[in-house]
């Protein structure tokens, strides 16, 4: 396992309903990341399909594994890269049950997937209309350490990232499609989630405009002590290479010992009281 490696925050603007064009962009930027010495390229939520696609999701969703994931696996194998991207996932057991999913592939193929647990259905968001929520926090063992995945609105729920961390994640990747009016929330939460879990947090957001909705970009890598180590431009497409160094985890955990100080009995109370809300 590498203790230190570079990753690419590939902040793209997806073309709506054009999986081919988006996959080409993913390929191009993965190659660029490789050229610049990175081992991991991260793309935003639903970067394969576009975010504002509404009923067209039924036509765009694919199973995992499926045609797109096969192409992504081939790309990862060819380049020796790890790639994370978002796509609408069609359940293998039904014909119209869809998940909002983050996929992680590596040089040896599909490593894992994470299905978004918290589906925003308020304001301009209508995800529960289309998606079934996931039920599992995920952290995957890779050559780049334990990588946990979450998606956008999940970051508002500390328990998701805490669980991901407790499952072993050293680097938590949050892919996102966050519109501009919510920028300040994410700027706060990305730092808070990294700090409270003493883990690296890579946040990769969409850029550009879809159906009038403007995505603010601002992708970033946050250190285990909550510092923003690298940041992409606001609003526009951008590509930023930055470095993860796991030796920083030990320092952070000693100085901010939140994991040592966890109180499991409070989690029982959380469950009890959240059921009563």
């Amino acid at each position, binding site marked *: 396992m590498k203790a230190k490696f570079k990753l690419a925050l590939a902040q793209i603007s997806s073309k709506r*309903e054009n999986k081919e064009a988006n996959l080409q962009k993913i390929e191009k930027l993965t190659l660029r990341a490789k050229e610049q010495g990175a081992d991991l390229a991260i793309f935003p939520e639903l970067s394969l399909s576009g975010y504002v696609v509404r*009923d067209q999701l039924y036509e765009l969703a694919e199973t995992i594994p499926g045609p797109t994931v096969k192409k992504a696996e081939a790309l990862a194998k060819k380049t020796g890269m790890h790639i994370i991207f978002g796509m609408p996932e069609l359940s293998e057991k039904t014909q119209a049950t869809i998940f909002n999913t983050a996929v992680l592939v590596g040089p040896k193929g599909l490593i894992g997937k994470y299905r978004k647990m918290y589906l925003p259905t308020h304001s301009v968001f209508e995800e529960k209309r289309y998606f079934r929520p996931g039920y599992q926090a995920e952290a995957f063992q890779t050559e780049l350490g334990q990588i946990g995945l979450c998606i956008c609105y999940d970051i508002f729920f500390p328990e998701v990232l805490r669980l991901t961390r407790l499952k072993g994640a050293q680097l938590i990747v949050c892919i996102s499609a966050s519109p*501009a009016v919510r920028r300040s929330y994410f700027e706060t939460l990305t730092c808070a989630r990294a700090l409270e879990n003493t883990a690296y947090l890579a946040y990769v957001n969409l850029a550009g405009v879809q159906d009038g909705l403007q995505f603010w970009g601002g992708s970033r890598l946050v250190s285990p002590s909550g510092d923003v180590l690298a940041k992409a431009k606001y609003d526009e497409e951008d590509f930023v290479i930055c470095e993860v160094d796991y030796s920083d985890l030990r320092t952070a955990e000693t100085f901010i010992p939140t994991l040592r100080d966890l109180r499991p009995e409070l989690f029982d109370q959380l469950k009890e009281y959240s059921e009563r809300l």
Partner: protein
Amino acid sequence: MKLTMSLLAVDFSEAEKRICRFIKEYVENAGAKGIVLGLSGGIDSGTIAALSSRAIGGDNVIGLMIPEEENFSQKDIDDAKLVAEKFNLQTQICDMSSALGCLYKAIPAFDPKDRLCKGNIKARTRMIYLYYYANKLNKIVSGSSDKSETMMGYFTKWGDAAADITPIMDLYKTQVRNLAIHLGIPKELALKPSTPALWPDQLAETELGIRYETLDLILYGLERFMATEEIANQLSIQKSLVDKVKSRWLSNEHKRRMPLAPKIGFRSVGNDFRLPRHTY
């Protein structure tokens, strides 16, 4: 939350950037060659002219001045020209008096004394001019409705609200005025009393029966689900006035939506056909 004008403060540089990006993206995706807008000499259309020019360049924007004899105002024409010059817009004057005269004669039930029905013909005729130019020049029509008048239903259905995009529809009137000043529109023009110009001497605030400063704060409170009683208390105004604004806002939803159809099919237009809006 304390309802004061400071709540309506906006980062106007950020708003300008966001609106310009929106306009540019829409025009490009539509494959259009620019924007047509009605240039009335008022603050809303002046602001749209400035934003459109900044977004895609004044050469790609044409402002139509569409006066008519009953309502003619040289001041409005001069103000419209001032904005056009400042932001380097193309302009065209289209006197619609003869077209209106023909329409008045051609409608068997036309009643010249019914100024609202007659005024609405004017707003809809302006729309015909705008869409003719857009069609002919492969441009899109930009509307200039703001949030205050849109929430109040203070516009002509399929008239001044008819457009492909409405870049300032999420800004209240008082916010538009400040955005206009930020964009470099002369203060005198930015603070000029608004009029839909449907009949002579028509003024928006007189007709609405409320100053925009008060209206905008009421609407801001309603937008955030505040109770009318709370809004009235905070603004030290009669609850009946706030109730009246709320009632007008809610009862005009039909003007802001697609026409309603009875549900019969599997997926229905304007109802549960939920498709992304394609601009190309």
